[in-house]
């Protein structure tokens, strides 16, 4: 427990593990706060906590997740990340080796996204009072889009584009946690989405709305946008990219890939005349990116319909995915 008392041992935790991993200039991580040069214009600010189990999974770990999560949230505001903070709640007895590994992957994720971790905090809790480690990340970004990016900008006719195939992160986590031996193993899509978003902005594509497809998956993200924006959406089932392993895993588990979480995927809503250009940009980063639907002129406000060969289904926000509604 002594590691959290604020004394020499905490100092050693920071000196030994976090500073070597994160610090890019001698001042980083030396104070309780950091001084940051702020660009002029609008700032974006985000915070999120990560409690994922298992901590390590195919395609990432809690560290990369925490950094990418913050970076992606900033990107979804049309902002380029400037700096991040990281707070750790560590369970007593957690292997230093694992902590080092997590710190390492946080650093590589930050580097990949071009962002610095400038301040942080660690607390140690009694053994049995945490699941190894929890991480909170907060981030500041500089807004770089000429117009605001939000559900309020969504217009009828807008095309809905996904940045790549969906459902891999959620299935990878579940496979590892429940020891489901999928063959071949499903690898998480956990990745920063900064670069594709910046490229969209560079290519002067008018971005009406961006949303990362995290918890609740594609369906939940689009329903939230449709309800906030007061519009109806229509998706084509056959256009939604789902990799065969994810499709197969979802089928046997009885899950709907549209509701499975992602970590490196986002949806972009753009005006119809910009859709092809936007898709071309996104395909440079992931060839599975696709235009999957349209914001409708008519239709029930706040609804998302899924057109299939067997009819059009109305998607719902689900409170308890596991309870059947079929009688």
């Amino acid at each position, binding site marked *: 427990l002594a590691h959290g008392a604020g004394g020499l041992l905490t100092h050693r935790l920071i000196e030994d593990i976090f500073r070597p991993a994160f610090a890019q200039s001698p001042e980083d991580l030396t104070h309780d706060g950091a001084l940051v040069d702020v660009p002029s214009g609008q700032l974006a600010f985000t915070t999120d906590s990560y409690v994922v189990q298992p901590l390590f999974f195919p395609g990432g770990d809690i560290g990369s997740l925490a950094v990418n999560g913050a970076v992606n949230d900033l990107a979804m505001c049309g902002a380029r990340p400037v700096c991040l903070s990281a707070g750790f709640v560590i369970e007593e007895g957690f292997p230093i080796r694992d902590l080092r590994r997590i710190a390492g992957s946080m650093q590589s994720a930050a580097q990949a996204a071009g962002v610095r971790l400038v301040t942080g905090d660690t607390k140690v809790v009694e053994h049995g009072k945490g699941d190894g480690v929890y991480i909170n990340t907060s981030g500041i970004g500089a807004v770089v889009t000429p117009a605001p990016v939000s559900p309020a900008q969504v217009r009828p006719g807008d095309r809905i584009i996904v940045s790549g195939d969906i459902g891999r992160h959620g299935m990878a986590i579940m496979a590892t946690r429940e020891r489901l031996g999928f063959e071949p193993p499903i690898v998480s899509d956990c990745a920063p989405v900064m670069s594709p978003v910046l490229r969209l902005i560079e290519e002067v594509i008018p971005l009406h709305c961006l949303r990362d497809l995290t918890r609740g998956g594609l369906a939940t993200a689009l329903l939230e946008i449709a309800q906030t924006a007061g519009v109806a959406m229509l998706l084509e089932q056959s256009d939604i990219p789902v990799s065969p392993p994810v499709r197969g895993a979802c089928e046997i588990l009885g899950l709907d890939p549209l509701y499975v979480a992602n970590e490196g995927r986002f949806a972009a809503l753009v005006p119809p005349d910009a859709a092809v250009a936007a898709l071309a940009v996104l395909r440079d980063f992931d060839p599975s990116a696709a235009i999957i639907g349209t914001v409708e002129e008519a239709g029930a406000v706040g609804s998302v319909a899924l057109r299939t060969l067997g009819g059009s289904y*109305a998607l719902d926000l689900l409170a308890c995915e596991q309870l059947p509604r079929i009688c």
Partner: protein
Amino acid sequence: MAAAPCLDAHAVQRIRLDVVGAVQGVGFRPFVYRLATEEGLAGFVRNTGAGVTLEVEGCAEALERFQVRLRGDIRPPARIQRLDRCSLEPVRQGGFAIQSSDADGAPSACVLPDLAMCEECRAEVFDPANRRYRYPFTTCTHCGPRYSIIEGIPYDRARTVMRHFAMCPACRAEYTDPASRRFHAETNACPDCGPQLALCDAGRNVLSTRGDALEGAATALSEGRIVALKGLGGFQLLVDARNEAAVARLRERKRRLAKPFAVMAGSIDQALAIAYVSEQEREALMSSAAPIVLLRARGDSPGQLAPGIAPGNPNIGLMQPATPLHGLLLEALGFPVVATSGNRSGEPMAADDAEAFARLAGIADLFLTHDRPIVNPADDSVMRRIAEDMTVLRCARGLAPLVLADPQQDAAVLALGGHMKNAVALGRDGEIVLGPHIGDLAYVESRTAFVHSIARMQQLYGAEAAVTACDTHPDYHTTRLAESGGAAVCAVQHHQAHILSAMAENGISGPVLGVAWDGTGFGADGTVWGGEFLEVEGSGYRRLAHFLPFRLPGGEAAVKEPRRTALGVLHGVYGSALWDSDALRPLLDFGPGEWSMLRSMIDRGVNASVTSSAGRLFDAVAAILKLCQHASFDGEAAMAVEFAAESAAGVHRLPRPVVVSDGEMRCIDWRPMLAEAADACMAGIPAGEIAAGFHHWLADAILEIAWHTGFQQVVLSGGCFQNALLTELAMARLQEAGFEVYRNIRVPPNDGGLAVGQAACAARRMNEVTG
């Protein structure tokens, strides 16, 4: 029978009668006119928002005779529910008049369901000398569209879609002639002034009209093509029922794998050639509802029907022509046709022309349509004979809106029903009105129809509901909608609603033992219920007993794949020994990868909710007996078990139900029964005999719990009681032991009746609060 004039002027009296019931659109005013003139009475009759008001004046004896005959001579579907009478001062004016409607007053007049063609109209349509010879829209005060064309009340031509058709002089003469069957027939029409047929291709091009359209459609059907026909409540898809290739094409285009199709027979003789029809079933077929009746197909008429109509199913859904249009078409064909709802599976049927062309474009080759709009769609109704009674399984065209007396109803309650087989109900003023079957609310189209149905019900009955009743399932569309509305929400547990639907229908208040068995419903403990024994009284319930819970690996996927449920149940019997058993494995059709994945799901509880469902127990038995491992439609597995049991040569008895008590709660352990069923199956005992044993075991379980709990009245409801064998076995045991048994007859026992139970619960809850 003209009465003697009243000689004594002082004996003249005048009375006013306010009549409530099925009195609009059924020739009630002409009936009153005839009675009054025959009795030599003066006065008037008119429709009001609430029903019919009439005043008659004459001598006391004539008035007395009039009132007796008013009740005695009334002809169904007209029906008097309530009659309020008061005395007035005589006004001494001669003659009797039918006055135009009075639109004031709270609209509560009974809205009639659509009525199938009557005998008189049928005779006219087939009489070459009649001016309506071969006219497909012939109707009179006894028959024709009602609910499907009504835009408002009181029921008058001006408030129906018939307002688009001005009557010609001949029709107007009938309309104003008290001696005519068409006296004040609001749907009156003829070839000169009424709606007309058109035959169109899928591109909406009119190919022919009137008689030629009918002939064109008949020719196309004879050639095996698929015709979309605009019927009373919506579009139906028709195809030659003898033509296997045509039936297969319809299945493929409709994306309906194996679910049986209904068949329309042109005459009762044609029906008798296809199926065994009892007197009771014949009456149902010929009734004004003209429903689909589930009948035992004749095995001795090979070549009559294409095998693809109801694969592997000993029953056939038959119906009779509901309109002259259907009658003429079937007459021209001389053979039965498949008549299935114009939709893709699960969606409501298309009713609007534009919608039909859009939605059925890839399915129908031709469209036989007409210019009389359908404003309130209703699918075909379905009935089945269960335990001596014609039981409604789908309440729709010809039956809805269904009115049930419920004295507990006061302020308006809107009940939103379930998620699948949705139908809404409105409770108010001593009645619950059940609207027509809408369908599965997973579909966009159903949600649109659902919104329309709610608006129309509230408009027709003039009730802005202050309370919205719904299920307790947090993810039902109906629950979401109730919560987002402005009205107070009354959430009713699914199985309690099932039991209350039967209690309200039978007018009993409890306490009863409610046996609520169905596929799935949201339980009060957050698990999936479906094999429940509840004490129900007033607005309250208590869970008394249930089946031992088991796992559903894959949730909804398990509902579609009975083999998954079977694995969950077998795991309940054998525990982890199941995974290493070489004997049990071949019972279920799983690949090695699937087997190990499902093992992980069950062992670790991954998307494997826990259920006590009786319907799922049927699924498990269906899979273990190899009757159905993958279901392509709702209820397929349970039906397979029932059919196997019915046709079995004997009954393989299974160990008696084991009832385990835990304090107040009782649990029925099915494990010994299931272990024996699996053993017997492996030992080569015919599946049908084991299936029969399973039915007996279930009936025994009901009797056992009835004994344990000791309520005199037992109520059976839930989708499992669409099973005739189970219902009959359970009723026989209970009645023999002296219990009174109640169940749904007019209200569907499946989720189509939930709204009735929800409305009943909400009214009782309100009355209990206000004392």
